[in-house]
């Protein structure tokens, strides 16, 4: 199971990649394996305001529907339209198949303002191990 070291994670199994003030968000390989084949991804619309920990979309697999949570606060600036045509990319390349991008606010030092509680790769690995 791969858990890239340069990403941040949530307990709800999203990953976040931050470049400047743009945060790209997807779901982890662990989540994709647990869900099984993803058949439909419902994403927030561009321009929508999302809040950390709040559901903003759905990931539907053969067996289940799961809420997609935003790991960060901000405004949706882009969604991955490729996933509408081929949701199986989420299973094939979970860390390439980003779902949506959010513009996050900057803190006083010009750094992206990320909510507390995002996990490091090591912390996320521990979480998935304890989940069995």
């Amino acid at each position, binding site marked *: 199971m791969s858990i890239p070291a340069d990403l941040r994670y949530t307990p709800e199994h999203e990953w976040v990649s931050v470049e400047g003030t743009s945060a790209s968000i997807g779901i982890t390989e662990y989540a994709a*394996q647990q869900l099984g084949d993803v*058949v439909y991804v419902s994403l927030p619309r561009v321009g929508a305001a999302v809040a950390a920990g709040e559901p903003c979309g759905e990931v539907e697999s*053969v067996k289940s*529907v799961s809420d997609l949570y935003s790991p960060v606060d901000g405004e949706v600036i882009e969604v991955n339209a490729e996933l509408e045509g081929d949701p199986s990319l989420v299973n094939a390349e979970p860390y390439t198949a980003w779902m949506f991008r959010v513009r996050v606010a900057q803190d006083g030092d010009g750094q992206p303002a990320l909510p507390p509680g995002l996990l490091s790769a090591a912390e996320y690995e521990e979480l998935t191990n304890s989940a069995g």
Partner: protein
Amino acid sequence: MHERLGATMTSFAGWQMPLRYASETAEHLAVRSAAGLFDLSHMGEILVTGPDAGAALDYALVGNLGSLAPGRARYTMICAADGGVLDDLVVYRQGEQEFLVIANAANTETVYRSLGSRSEGLVAEVADATGDYALIAVQGPAAAAILGPLASVDLSVMKYYTGAFGDVAGRPSWVARTGYTGEDGFEVFCRPGDAVWIWEALAGAGTPAGLVPAGLAARDTLRLEAGMPLYGNELGPDVTPFEAGLGRVVKFDKPGDFVGREALAARASEGPRVVLAGLTMQSRRIARHGYPVLADGGPGSGSRRVGTVTSGAPSPTLGVPIAMAYVEPGVSRDHPELAVDIRGQAAPADLTNLPFYRRSQ
């Protein structure tokens, strides 16, 4: 063993069962094009034996089992006195006085108790033998070619819905040409201690022919495409076989009374209150168990609820989501175009005939 193969396991009726090994879609397609290997050891096995075994089953079940020839199998149901379905079953007549009854895992206890109480006064013994059997299924067009060389029974002369005692990979088994996938295939009932041996022999022989291990998720989409009911979805104590479109399993012309006869005869004469219909979705959205079926527009636009989805999944064969639903009897004629309320949004759907998939002979 399944975990060694990388399976995602799930709890099902108290059993730890493989849900999928890799991709359930790939497993599904392998069964349609080559073969899949299933561990179905959670299924219940109940032995009914003795001089009155056939008579006991004729009274306890809706089918005519006493007339079944040894070596033959039959799909049947056990109903309550009010006609509600307690379980759907496959019954094998293994000998003149020996019947093997296969029940769904969650219903095994109910079926075992009902068979026991319904055979009182008859010379028949009912035994729950679930712990004495493992069940491995090989399903798909390549199944006969894979199992044949490993089996002591001649599969080339074995007809659909028959079974025979024989060895598989040298281990004693009951081999039956039955299944729940809509494909040709076999089910091998063996001793639990022989299951891994037989599984590995079949996997070894089948892998070059395209056989893959397949889990419960693929089994569910395979049976859905084939229009086969699942207990808890299409079948339950609140429906009779007639609603499920399976009234043919009820044999009113068999000798003697049977449990549920009166209620079922009434239902047969008045016609079903709902009918089981097939839906194909016009979008990628999946209509799932319990979702309302609507006619005449979407939610809030004057639409009317005309039914409820019982099972839904993406169909790997058709490439679109499919569903089965109980709908009002008139709906099939008057509303070929329907919608399913998917968490508040109307997803257009078309009525279709069941099954969604039929194998080419």
